[in-house]
């Protein structure tokens, strides 16, 4: 019972902090808009797609995945702030278990990232990208599932870091490789991509997350290009989440 209350209060804290940081919410509109409008317009002709698919349809789930990834990773910064400003100590000396502490933070941050993902989805619909609005409800749990693992990566890295300076490197060494190697910007199948790229992408959990999102939002139109059927995509992402939760709990246990 007290573990549940601890989880709730840690979750709520992440939500409140996020909600109060208005600048972050406002800027979160801008980036996906740039991708969906400018990048998509410029690169629409570069990829050979079946006649029943437009590039904007394909890139929207990709940009949702990218937004989830970047937001999730950025959440790690909160852990570093908490360590630097001492609040982490207040949490760590409480009688709540480290697993609960990790889960409270992780699910809280995931909820925040999910909000960003929803915003992108809505932007996509507002731009008139032909996607059935009903698929939003199928996409929602998948988005959350994707976020759990990604937020966990950020939290684990942050738990090992002592200061904010090093966190910028994550952008270079984690965010961009995961992003570019996930097929978020282009279909991995059916094109003339170099095979090494496709092979590496197969080891990227985000690849399956984006594929799952395309499977539900684009339906049968995506089937010829899909990496895996939906249930395998979900299985891979869920497995990755499970592993990351174990790793994250371990990382938080050794944190001082």
């Amino acid at each position, binding site marked *: *019972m*007290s573990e549940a*209350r*601890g989880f*709730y*209060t*840690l979750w709520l*804290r992440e939500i*409140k*902090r996020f909600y*109060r*940081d208005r600048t972050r919410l406002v800027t979160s509109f801008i980036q996906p808009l740039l991708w969906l409008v400018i990048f998509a317009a410029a690169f629409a002709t570069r990829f050979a797609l079946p006649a029943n698919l437009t590039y904007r349809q394909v890139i929207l789930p990709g940009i949702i995945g990218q937004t989830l990834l970047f937001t999730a990773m950025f959440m790690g910064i909160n852990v570093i702030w*908490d360590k630097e*400003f*001492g*609040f*982490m*100590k*207040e*949490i*760590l*000396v*409480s*009688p*709540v278990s480290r697993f609960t502490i990790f889960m409270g933070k992780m699910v809280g941050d995931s909820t925040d990232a999910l909000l960003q993902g929803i915003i992108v989805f809505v932007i996509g619909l507002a731009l008139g990208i032909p996607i059935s609005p009903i698929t939003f409800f199928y996409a929602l749990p998948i988005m959350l599932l994707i976020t759990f693992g990604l937020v966990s990566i950020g939290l684990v890295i942050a738990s090992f870091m002592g200061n904010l300076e090093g966190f910028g490197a994550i952008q270079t060494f984690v965010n961009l490789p995961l992003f570019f190697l996930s097929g978020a910007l282009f279909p991995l199948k059916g094109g003339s991509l170099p095979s090494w790229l496709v092979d590496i992408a197969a080891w990227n959990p985000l690849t399956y997350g984006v594929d799952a999102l395309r499977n539900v939002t684009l339906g049968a139109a995506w089937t010829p290009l899909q990496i895996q059927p939906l249930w395998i995509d979900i299985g891979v992402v869920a497995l990755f989440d499970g592993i990351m939760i174990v790793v994250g709990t371990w990382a938080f246990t050794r944190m*001082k």
Partner: protein
Amino acid sequence: MPHAIETKQLTKTYGSLKAVDSLDIAVEPGEIFGLLGPNGAGKTTFVSMLCTILKPTSGSATVNGFDIVREANKVRKSIGIVFQDPSIDDRLTGRENLFMHANLFGVPASEQKERINRILKLVELEDRADDLLRTYSGGMRRRLELGRGLIHYPKVLFLDEPTVGLDPQTRDHIWKYIKELKQTHDITVVLTTHYMDEADRLSDRIAIIDHGKMVILDTPQKLKDTLEGDVVAVRANNVNALAELVTKWLGFPKTKIVDGALEITVRNGKVVMPRIMELAAQNNIYVESIVLREPNLEDVFLHYTGRNIREDTGKELHGASAARRRAIK
């Protein structure tokens, strides 16, 4: 009655550095127990072990009867901690910080609201309770942290350097609260400080810690009494020569020079003062001023450790040990 805290040969080492060295300390229930020592003496390390943040290298300890290693969770539930460094979320309001703490420490939901209101009243933050903490002054934050440490009704409250970096007025205020807390909440308080006046005014008993070891343990009054008498402080144009003369001719070995003034600890200062003047005049030493005062804890510290508490301030806070110490925090 069992001890609130009892440590047996409690030790923490970092490589070759013994931060805490075989401490045997028993704290009685209901007392304010002062741990006095220069920065780096091992106070925070000692307290961190009792708060289950650090594991001891050897030795053992109980807090409220619970073993700090085997029953860490029970220890955590029964203690309150106010850390040396701030540990509040400045993007939440005062009230939200308190609610969070109540939830983390398993305070029943039905009691939370009332307890928090009472705490806010106690630390006089009712009117600012719903403002974000970033708008609070340093003293207000400190008061909130003090109050927060009490929400779950701890039996022992640890205060690690509670007034570092605060202005004199605020320090006075905080001291008043700590004394009130002890009376109204019937709790044991463990206070670490490197401020002599703080230890003196608050503590029922004081343990002087230096280099991880306990030098002496007694009430502030008794500690001062052991110095037997008065301190005569003399300012002169040649204090070193005067010190030698005083030691040689008047037979007072307890002399020292503090901030350019010669301080002599004697049984009866009034009688000694004229003789010092005489001695100075005979040897052509010009006395600028001569003052008689009661001994303070500063003198006690000097007496037992052979050095001034401030000399060491920050000394050990360089290099590797500093990095380790920061990591401990």
